[in-house]
């Protein structure tokens, strides 16, 4: 199984049926796999805070949601995380492309990378960092944890992780 298939099969096994995404190069494969997955309804968002609104609605409608986005979106969604997802205590797995780490060709990406973990820590968001291919083995437990505690949870996937895959 490819890592993209592994990720999507963990989503399906955890009954995640509603996924929104704002694309990133690193996440292109997983987004394609989700789009092709009959168990998951995939709805692209124009902006990540809009996506979190869709996820909040889907969750209240009885479907487990997830969002796929780039770490730059932490900047976009801070208010939504605090006043919607956390304030109403909603679960939200966030599969995040962690741009700006080793191997990054675009200098500007580093500017948000240096703030990513600090912002997530400031917001008390449980954060997991996939750096090696084997780290994906924790995804199933992370998803279970997310829906146990009703919190947004960040899964940062960096370039080294995707390179090994």
């Amino acid at each position: 199984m490819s890592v993209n298939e592994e990720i999507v099969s963990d989503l399906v096994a955890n009954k995640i049926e509603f996924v929104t995404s704002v694309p990133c190069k690193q996440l292109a494969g997983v987004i394609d796999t989700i789009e092709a997955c009959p168990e998951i309804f995939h709805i692209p968002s124009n902006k990540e805070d809009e996506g979190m609104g869709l996820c909040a609605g889907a969750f209240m409608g009885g479907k487990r949601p997830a969002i796929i986005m780039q770490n730059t979106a932490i900047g976009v969604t801070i208010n939504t995380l605090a006043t919607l997802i956390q304030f109403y205590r909603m679960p939200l797995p966030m599969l995040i492309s962690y741009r700006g780490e080793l191997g990054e060709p675009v200098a500007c990406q580093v500017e948000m990378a240096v703030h990513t973990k600090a912002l997530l820590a400031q917001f008390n968001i449980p954060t997991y960092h996939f750096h090696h291919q084997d780290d994906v083995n924790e995804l199933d437990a992370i998803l279970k944890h997310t829906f146990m505690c009703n919190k947004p949870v960040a899964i940062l996937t960096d370039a080294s992780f995707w390179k090994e895959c």
Partner: protein
Amino acid sequence: MIRSEILRDIAPLLCDHLVVCNIGLPSQELHMIDDQPTNFYMLGTMGLSSSIGLGLALAQDKKVIAIDGDGSVLTNFGTLSTIANNCADNFILLIIDNGSYGSTGDQPTYAGKKTSLTAVALACGCENVIECQAEETGAVLKSALEGDKMTIIVSKCKSGNIKVPVIIMDPVVIRDRFMTAVKA
């Protein structure tokens, strides 16, 4: 007619359906006029009423009415293209367009100037877009509820606010009560 008068007018239509209500005065007014477990009040997060409503409509079969404002739609313009491209025939977006940011003191919005939200919704690909005057909102909403077609209603009204208390209900209580009503 101002927004609170429209809400008073349509409250008997809203009470049988799932309602996602916009942040600030719209939620406070609806809460005061006719609090229902089928109402989801937004206490924060300007702009996401239509997104929450669409997500909810796509996830289950009951009819969903998202009450939004012109200022809030302007802050989340992308929503109209997401709505157009992910049709949910159990979804009605009611934009109460008073041409101002009501909750912050009635500063004018661009929707009250050159920008037509109706035209934007159409340009985004929304197929059933109805612009009406405030007084017609009840009748338009009623026929939208009777038809099983996703509908965007842009209700043009005057700006102005009434005195209304803030909502002190805990957000988790609002959400839990609402989810119980969704499942009922």
